[in-house]
């Protein structure tokens, strides 16, 4: 499964301050650590970045790729910043991913054409103006719209990563299962099956600190079983990486050897 590292974001104090001061150190340190722990892609979350978003995104992409030779997941709602990031992205190690488009018309209409223009991958959140649908089937209906727009913009189905959106189990326990069902249904929307992604840690949002890792790990295994292709997680959490490797083995996606955890 593709691991997208989530640790470079505006919410974390050290990272946010580094971004504000244009201080490479903490950002590059975190980038290298995440890759070392198994991240195949790094999420670069600069937030809405209303103040010089383009400059910031350009600087972030170059700073991170200077030391981390992986593709980046560009995480912002600012379309100009998104475009700046796509322009600056070095595709040597893989194409960039737009995080994200959604079923909400305005967002879909400004982000999807960028994927077509820059030949990038793109995450499609299956929510719309009315919010996150209750049923997996309704998420599929939004997915179908996203896929329709993609076809219009010349974006291949293989480049879309559908995200069913995860609701925290402390507040909406009954919804946890629905997101898992949605992953299974998304896969069936096309041949070859559509790709999927989730922002994992939301499942444990609001739970006591010591419970969060456990909830995250088990939920990951369940989602992987239904066909999750990638997840935005903290790669530095060793036990999570071990669960991912073990699930890949149990599902026959990686060939078994006694030393599989060391690979």
């Amino acid at each position: 499964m593709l691991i997208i590292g989530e640790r470079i974001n505006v919410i974390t104090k050290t990272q946010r301050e580094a971004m504000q001061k244009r201080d490479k150190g903490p950002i590059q340190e975190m980038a290298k650590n995440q890759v070392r722990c198994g991240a195949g892609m790094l999420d670069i979350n600069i937030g809405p970045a209303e103040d010089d978003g383009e400059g910031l995104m350009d600087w972030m992409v170059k700073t991170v790729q200077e030391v981390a030779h992986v593709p980046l997941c560009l995480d912002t709602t600012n379309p100009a910043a998104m475009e700046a990031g796509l322009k600056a992205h070095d595709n040597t190690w893989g194409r960039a991913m737009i995080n994200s488009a959604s079923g909400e018309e305005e967002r879909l209409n400004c982000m999807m054409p960028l994927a077509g223009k820059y030949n990038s991958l793109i995450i499609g959140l299956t929510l719309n103006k009315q919010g996150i649908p209750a049923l997996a089937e309704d998420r599929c209906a939004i997915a179908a719209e996203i896929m329709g727009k993609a076809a219009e913009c010349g974006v291949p189905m293989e480049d879309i990563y559908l995200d069913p959106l995860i609701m925290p189990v402390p507040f909406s326990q009954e919804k946890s299962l629905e997101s898992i069902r949605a992953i299974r249904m998304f896969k069936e929307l096309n041949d070859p099956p559509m790709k999927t992604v989730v922002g994992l840690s939301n499942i444990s949002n609001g739970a006591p600190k010591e419970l969060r890792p456990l909830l995250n790990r088990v939920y990951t295994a369940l989602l992987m079983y239904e066909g999750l292709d990638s997840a935005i997680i903290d790669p530095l959490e060793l036990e999570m990486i071990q669960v991912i490797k073990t699930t890949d083995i149990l599902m026959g996606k990686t060939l078994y050897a006694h030393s599989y955890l060391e690979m």
Partner: protein
Amino acid sequence: MAFVVPKDTYNGRVFEVEIGTGAKAVKIGGENTLPFLTFEGEVPNMPVIAHEIQDVLPEDWPETVQAAYKDVSGDPVKWAKHCQDNLGAQVIALRLLGTHPDRQDRSPEDAAKTVSDVLAAIDVPLIILGSNHAEKDAQVLRAACDAAKDRNCLIGKAQEANYKTIVAAAMASGHKIIAMSDLDVNLAKQLNILITQMGFDKEKIMTDPMSSALGYGIEYTYSVMERIRAASLNQNDATMSPPIVNDIGMYVWKVKETMASESDLPAWGSLEERAIGWESTTAVGLMMAGSDLLIMRHPKAIETVRKVVAELA
């Protein structure tokens, strides 16, 4: 309905491993698609065949294949030159069978001398094989590695019981390694992991899944190979991406079909053709499953396999 060629896309590729030095060095592997499917990928190197010779007279080889080398097989140097100069061998595999404790029990030093003598006589790459006695092989191959320094040989075989010594020796003298496990894809992966954890470059290994003769387990080898190749190409599993080597002569020329006379078994037809065909069919079958390097004995079987390789290019 229009036919669209169904192309698969792959995430990984087989490593390209070079053996030998100078103009006659040979590259093995490097493909990024299933065997010979150039319509959807690249096959930079076609399968290579190595001629097998031994350090002692091959008295236990069936008559059909002994006869092919009767004038040269008493002297490994003569034998090697014959294969290179007269039979067009691209690679030679020297099996140090004489070092087996149940055979002549030759010493590592004597074996090393044979290696040096053979190397002095040829310029094609050399594969150096032990007698398949785990403990003795560790000493013999260590001595052989040293004697063969600077010639970039392929040393085999490192197995679970003896890989540490052999890998260390190969690392010290800059050789490539054959890693062999018992017809099990997971064990094959584990051995490659253990070898790389010693610091040995994963791109200097070749995987020997343990070959079997046609009619005597070839399908086990065949499927292990297909699964190894799938892990490499579909799962981008670097530990399963070394090229695959099949040492088939030693398994083929033990079976009844290469020895029983036509008078004993009329339903089996002519012995000589049957035996040669048994070796070439084993080779062709395994090439379909992904063999990158084949170690073979009979010149006529080798000639046939070469023709097939030419037709597959």
